[in-house]
């Protein structure tokens, strides 16, 4: 496989799944170990329902699916650059993570149907605590754990063709 061609669909599916799995383990592990209160599956699930149990299940599925789909974008990006290395993947993951923390998270109170804001307060529907800049409201280690998860996600995706080439 050359650096200028996309991996096969089946490879992208498998490695996309694996990368998502690694990212999920880091993110959920960080929450379970008390390093951060951020739960992206819960945030995703509450877009659809206010029932906590359903939100967690739906959110988990959406999150896994999202991670999978994003993997295709990563592969397209690596192909366009012509670089397939674990460090390029990690750098892409870090950039992606930084965008999530700096751009997407502060935007959430304006687009999430169940998120309260520090301007408008909470209401019957809007009750979730907003993440704030870089998700710092969910704990000061949140940026670190999020960046670590995204970096590993990218490293797995970027490192896969490298590994495949070595094995061939």
């Amino acid at each position, binding site marked *: 496989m050359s650096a200028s061609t996309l991996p096969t669909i089946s490879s992208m599916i498998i490695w996309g799944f694996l990368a998502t799995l690694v990212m999920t383990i880091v993110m959920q592990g960080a929450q379970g170990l008390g390093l951060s209160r951020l739960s992206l599956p819960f945030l995703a699930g509450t877009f659809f329902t206010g*029932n906590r149990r359903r939100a967690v299940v739906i959110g988990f599925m959406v999150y896994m699916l999202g991670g999978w789909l994003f993997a295709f974008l990563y592969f397209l990006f690596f192909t366009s650059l012509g670089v397939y290395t674990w460090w390029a993947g990690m750098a892409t993951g870090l950039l992606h993570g930084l965008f999530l923390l700096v751009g997407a998270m502060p935007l959430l109170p304006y687009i999430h149907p169940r998120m309260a804001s520090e301007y408008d307060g909470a*209401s019957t529907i809007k009750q979730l605590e907003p993440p704030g800049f870089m998700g710092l409201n969910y704990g000061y280690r949140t940026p670190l754990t999020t960046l670590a998860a995204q970096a590993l996600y990218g490293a797995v995706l970027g490192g896969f063709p490298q590994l495949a080439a070595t094995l061939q």
Partner: protein
Amino acid sequence: MLQVKGAVAHPQSQYVEMGIGDYAIIGDCRTAALVSHEGSIDWFCLPHFSGPSVFAAILDQERGGRFRIRPKGPFRSTRRYCGPTAVLQTTFETPTGSARLIDAMPVVQDSDALHPLREVLRIIEGIEGEVCFEVHWSPRPNYAQADALIRSRGALGWSCSWSDEIFFLRAEAPLNFSSQEGAVVGQIRIESGQRIRFSFCYAKADIAVVASLGREADERLQSTLSWWRSWSDQCVYAGPHRETVMRSAITLKLMTFVLSGAVLAAPTTSLPEWIGAERNWDYRFCWVRDAALTMSAFTGLGFRSEARAFLEWLLHATRLTWPELQVMYDVYGRTSLRERELGHLGGYRGSRPVRIGNGAYRQVQLDVYGGLLFAVRNYVEKGGDLQDDEARLLIGFAQTVCRQWRDPDSGIWEIRGRKRHYTFSKFMCWAALDSLIKLNDRGSLLVGAEALRRERDEIERVIETRGFNESLNSYVSELDGERLDASLLLMGCLGYKDPAHPRMRATFERIQERLGRNGLLYRYEEGNDHLPSREGAFGICSFWAIDNLARRGDVDAAKKAFKHILSFSNDVGLFAEEIDPETGEALGNFPQAFTHVGLINAAMALARGTDSDSHLS
């Protein structure tokens, strides 16, 4: 002088020393808070009863942290619960007007909406004139050891965070941070007809859900009131003092951990058994020995789902140590309850040390087997089912009893030091085997009953020959001993001996003579536990005496004694573990499930006695 009930006058000062009985309890069956006469939440642990405190002013006025809403200037306060619920109402009267403070921990029923992990809802209502309130919110997480960050969150109110925990305070009034006090404070003027709501929300290891105020807060309060009323309606007790019994049942429910069915001994730690002394223990755990009486209270009052949940917890929690039993477990059944001292907390009115965890979990107490097996028997006799795997567990416990009943142990009162041969422990081993034999006889389980009968009869022989002192004409605390112990009254309550039997009557009289004081009973004679300080009379022992009186037909005496003991409850019907017989002051952890269990069982015995009396006449 006995405790004054009703209105309490408060001069204004920064810190007012509260009596233990000056508190009332609110809760959501996951955790509980103690609210003082002056509207201060001085004890609150999160996320559950045995979790670390966020407010612990009861154990250290300056460092502990509190959430106080009280009138500015002098006031008088009266309290009551809103009917058969756990919603507390404190009415403040001031020279300029009166207002009431409603305190509740909302019970969640709507699973389609997001709710905080825990919430305390506080609502001030103006009744007459105008009252100026001062608000003080000083969370001090992790027993006031955490380096917490308090900050303004704009329209979301105030937050305090540490580790993976966050506390939110929302209010319908402006509040500010006082760096001098390290607290969020404010002054609020309320007029007649006005309502101001406060919500304290908590989240751990998750994104916080911040509760809304206004009409939604009122709806949560209404829903909580309805839930408690509907729960209380299940109570089938129709005997004397129904309201008092109902309050005890609600208190017991408040100390039942809904996520596992465990029943806590008390929601507090280190409230002293004698002011200024070292008898300060952590009671935020579940004692297996209390199971027999707790189960009787649940089944007798008709709370079947609580009885089933409690049984499941008993059998589930004890699997880690099966076929042996530990003295106590935590609400999830965890077995390691390592004891530590918190040297930075000054203790309730200087009663140090403040302890968390309880070293008694390492003790051997043989009475626990009787507690558990009698509870199972009671559950089955009242119509409960026993599954095959549960029956097998019970047989394992019985085998342990047969192996160990001849050994010394630390006894019901967990006396530290050398083990002894307590008559009460032998009697509870007898109760364990007797319960299993009775379950076998009714076909609820199959066990080698003949072997158990032989062992049970041998225990009885030992109790009757060595546990009964002929010269004293009484059962005694230890085999071949001379001291008395109020726990021996349980022999009459749990079916070992008819309370009307001459030996039980004589024992009752000796216990009254030696351990009685102002109509109350000490649990044992002074010096028996080798601790230097004194202690109060033990609440539940007095109820055991009433139970004995009622069962032997002395109903009038039982009624009189019951009424007398009720006079020692606080203004909202709550009891601590102990009572100072001289002053009537509550002592020890508060409120104490065991004392309320005793009250319920004594009331039921009285009701049965009254029924028999009326049938005879």
